[in-house]
């Protein structure tokens, strides 16, 4: 049991007093026997702890800098680093559960083998046995197929610490393998911004305070970037107006000046209507569209021919006079900005919607302006060496002919000409790709930093696909649904048990992640696991794996750093980060501040030939969304208590979030005979979810909402009813199109007689 000095001291002292009292000092307290004086606890003494620097590596805008307080080799508590003006001394409801995560009794403690996948018949094995079984299987596959394309890796955002790209490195060090590429997160918007601006590059979020008008469009920072909220509030205190546009009355919407409940998938029409009104009202920034952009005249002609404010109003559901008023206010406020959320591009027309919003912001003259911008994300601070990731295939390795290679938004390896490359499969169609893989079939899957049964789409299909696999190895901390579908599970360290370094895709801070405690139980970091595998491989077949057989986590963290990183952050060495996180030295808080764009023309492209070449329209034209095939649209966004399948499983979190719901409008619930708290079935052609209903006017009448999460004690998985329908864009920069996560349709009915 872990205890603070100030708490332990108090308890220990009083225990002594009680014992003394019982032994004979009866009546020590005034007016009573056996009652000791209540003692004052000693003031909290930070110097009684060893303090380490850590960083939250989850797939989150905020990527918090953490201060970890350790005593007796035990993490006693964590707090936000005060040096980062973004983290500002406070973590979020998830981050504060970290001490429990480290010491949770539910953690996977040692390698385990499941006798019969899904049987629950687990037994402890040694690391040696685990690696022997894995290495034997890999060599068997290589012998059978003459290559290692039967070995696949699926990994994404479970831990963004840079050294964890060593998992990809481990795969390369074995040979040419199969990689699941792409991202379910934000690809359509990335490509959209690349067409328009030449890259995804957002302003420093801390400059939101300078904005005079802020549209938060399809983002919910109150839950998903809560450290950004203080900037929205500060902007408002300085007179800014905040408009939230979202299909759901989100927590962010509740804090806005104005909320527009847009019909899902029609945000593009709304943005085009606003653009048309800029044109009609003479509010276009002539300087920007003429001097910093190309294709503006074509776009203006498109708007005049195809778009009216009335049409935008009818399509989106937002009244025309409100569209006009907000557009005029936005144009009058300098600077004005739109925060484009990842939610609004998870549609079959998501990329086109982002392009329409970009165009509106560009026409208003707010691109390249401090406090302005079409903010989406950035990778400006990710210029690490990717030393762990870049490993050489063993001599004589055979793969897919040609150098197509894996792709991804975080793939910084650069393309080098090769005779062979890895086989790439679409991460957003994991189930279908496993089922369809031929020559060779996918035989073995390595899963790290990812929980496919919680994140990948069409869970029922995924079960069938996994049944095809001959061996599944999961690297995990908890017995997730994915682990249940695995043969071997390997325990991986938490962020407090390993060295790494972390950057954000939203803010501009860099954080060191020190090893604060020894690895718990038999847990190992991803690169240590790779080294162990290399040892097992080379013991069996010398030269079969190029990954170093010994790694030092700290050394490998240092190897990720370079002069470019040091210069960008104004530090002379990574060791300076021990004093606290560092912020990139920016010439301006505005992206594109010099109006030099990375597009082929070097200008903002209202009309993108590249976009047209890739099969879309050159202009950001309106594209209709996916047609419903069931009565309700289902949206499965994020809740503040979890990050995908992480955190909600912890008993600490259960104290605040014990149970999920499907949120349904009271009028719709009435029609379906559903009362508040009833058990219901949410179902469609691919599956069903049983969950309690919570009646809420926060959702539209034709929408239902379930938040993605993994509860350790509940059979709840939104991916039962989310299919793998693709979003429009994403293939260019991330290797695969995104997923239309919010273009899903379901029906709903009372289950088990309702009041179960």
């Amino acid at each position, binding site marked *: 049991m872990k205890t603070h000095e100030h708490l332990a001291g108090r308890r220990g002292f009083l225990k002594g007093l009680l014992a003394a009292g019982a032994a004979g000092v009866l009546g020590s307290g005034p007016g009573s026997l056996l009652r000791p004086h*209540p003692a004052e*606890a000693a003031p*909290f*003494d930070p110097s009684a702890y060893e303090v380490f620097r850590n960083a939250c590596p989850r797939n989150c805008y905020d990527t918090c800098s953490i201060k970890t307080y350790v005593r007796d080799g035990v993490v006693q508590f964590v707090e936000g680093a005060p040096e980062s003006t973004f983290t500002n001394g*406070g*973590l979020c409801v998830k981050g504060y559960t970290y001490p429990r995560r480290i010491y949770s009794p539910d953690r996977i403690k040692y390698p385990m083998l499941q006798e019969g996948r899904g049987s629950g018949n687990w037994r402890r094995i040694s690391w040696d046995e685990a690696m022997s079984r894995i290495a034997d299987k890999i060599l068997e596959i290589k012998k059978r197929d003459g290559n290692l394309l039967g070995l696949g890796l699926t990994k994404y955002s479970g831990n963004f610490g840079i050294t964890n790209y060593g998992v990809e490195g481990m795969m390369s060090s074995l040979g040419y393998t199969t990689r699941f590429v792409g991202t379910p997160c934000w690809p359509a918007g990335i490509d959209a911004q690349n067409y328009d601006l030449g890259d995804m590059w957002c302003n420093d979020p801390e400059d939101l305070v300078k904005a005079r008008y802020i549209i938060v469009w399809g983002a919910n920072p109150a839950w998903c970037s809560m450290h950004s909220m203080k900037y929205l509030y500060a902007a408002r205190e300085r007179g800014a107006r905040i408009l939230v546009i979202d299909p759901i009355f989100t927590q962010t919407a*509740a804090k806005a000046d104005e*909320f527009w*409940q847009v019909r899902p998938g029609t945000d593009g029409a709304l943005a085009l209507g606003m653009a048309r009104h800029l044109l009609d009202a003479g509010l276009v920034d002539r300087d920007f569209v003429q001097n910093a952009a190309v294709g503006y005249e074509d776009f203006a002609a498109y708007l005049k021919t195809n778009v009216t404010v009335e049409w935008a109003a009818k399509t989106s559901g937002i009244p025309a006079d409100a569209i006009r008023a907000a557009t005029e206010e936005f144009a009058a406020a300098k600077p004005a900005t739109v925060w484009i959320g990842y939610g609004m591009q998870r549609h079959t027309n998501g990329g086109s919607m982002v392009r329409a919003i970009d165009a509106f912001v560009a026409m208003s003259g707010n691109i390249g302006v401090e406090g302005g911008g079409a903010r989406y994300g950035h990778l400006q601070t990710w210029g690490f060496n990717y030393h762990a990731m870049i490993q050489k295939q063993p001599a004589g390795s055979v793969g897919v002919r040609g150098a197509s290679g894996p792709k991804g938004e975080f793939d910084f390896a650069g393309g080098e000409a090769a005779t062979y490359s890895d086989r790439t499969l679409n991460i957003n169609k994991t189930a279908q790709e496993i089922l369809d893989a031929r020559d060779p079939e996918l035989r073995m899957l390595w899963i790290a930093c990812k929980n496919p049964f919680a994140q990948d789409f069409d869970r029922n299909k995924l079960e069938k696909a996994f049944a095809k696999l001959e061996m599944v190895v999961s690297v995990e901390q908890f017995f997730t649904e994915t682990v249940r579908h695995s043969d071997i599970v390997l325990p991986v360290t938490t962020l407090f048990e390993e060295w790494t370094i972390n950057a954000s895709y939203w803010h501009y801070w860099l954080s060191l992640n020190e090893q604060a405690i020894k690895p718990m139980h038999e847990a190992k970091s991803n690169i240590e696991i790779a080294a162990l595998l290399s040892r097992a491989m080379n013991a069996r077949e010398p030269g079969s794996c190029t990954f170093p057989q010994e790694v030092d986590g700290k050394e490998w963290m240092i190897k990720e750093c370079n002069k470019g990183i040091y210069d960008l952050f104004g530090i002379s060495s990574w060791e300076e980060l021990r004093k606290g996180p560092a912020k990139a030295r920016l010439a301006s808080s505005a992206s594109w501040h010099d109006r030099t764009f990375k597009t082929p023309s070097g200008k903002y492209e209202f009309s993108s030939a590249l976009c047209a070449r890739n099969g879309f329209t050159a202009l950001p034209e309106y594209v209709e969304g996916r047609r419903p095939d069931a009565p309700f649209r289902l949206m499965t966004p994020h809740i503040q208590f979890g990050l995908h399948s992480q955190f909600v499983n912890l008993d600490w979190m259960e104290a605040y979030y014990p149970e999920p719901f499907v949120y349904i409008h009271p009028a719709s619930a009435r029609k379906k005979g559903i009362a508040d708290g009833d058990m219901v079935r949410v179902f469609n052609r691919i599956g069903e979810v049983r969950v309690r209903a919570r009646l809420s*006017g926060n959702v539209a009448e034709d929408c239902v909402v379930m938040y993605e999460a993994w509860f350790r004690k509940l059979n709840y998985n939104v991916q039962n009813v989310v299919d793998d329908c693709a979003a429009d864009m994403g293939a260019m920069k991330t290797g695969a199109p995104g997923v239309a996560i919010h273009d899903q349709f379901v029906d709903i009915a009372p289950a088990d007689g309702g009041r179960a």
Partner: protein
Amino acid sequence: MSTRYAFLMDMDKCIGCRGCGMACKNFNQLAPDMVWRQVYPLDERIYPHRDRAFLSLACNHCDDPACLAACPAGSYTKRPDGIVVHHQETCIGCTNCIRSCPYGAPRFNKVEKHAEKCSLCHERLDAGLTPACVQACPTGALTLIDLDTFDNANAVQYPAGYPAMPRLNPSTRFILPRMPRVLRG
């Protein structure tokens, strides 16, 4: 000059994130199912959007604490700065305090069989720091005030949904939430 510490809970800034409550668990090392601070969504009759406005409540460190009056073991003390301190070591687990507090602040620890509650992190205050929940709040919705100098005409003592107990005179103060203009498609 005396001091009377209190929480100021700005419902207009609160986003219901529960970071305050979890920061409390983290710093005070509470048992897995124990909370000293809970965040309650306001009833729709009070705020018309369900689950979108909140009361974040811990101990209100009352002027005349019912828990202290009800405790037969003398396990409650009130510091000169207003903080009501519960001493777990002398608690006999009778639950009188739990039954007498109209705000549900003291809670029963089933394993250790004693009551416990928010200490206003007086160990931190005594070291010149803010309470863990206040430090955690990402929006400045939860702050520490001194009632003897606090002067905010917008603050209320008894917002709707919060029991009015003038005899106890709870120290927490609140700012009420506003609402956005809503246009629905």
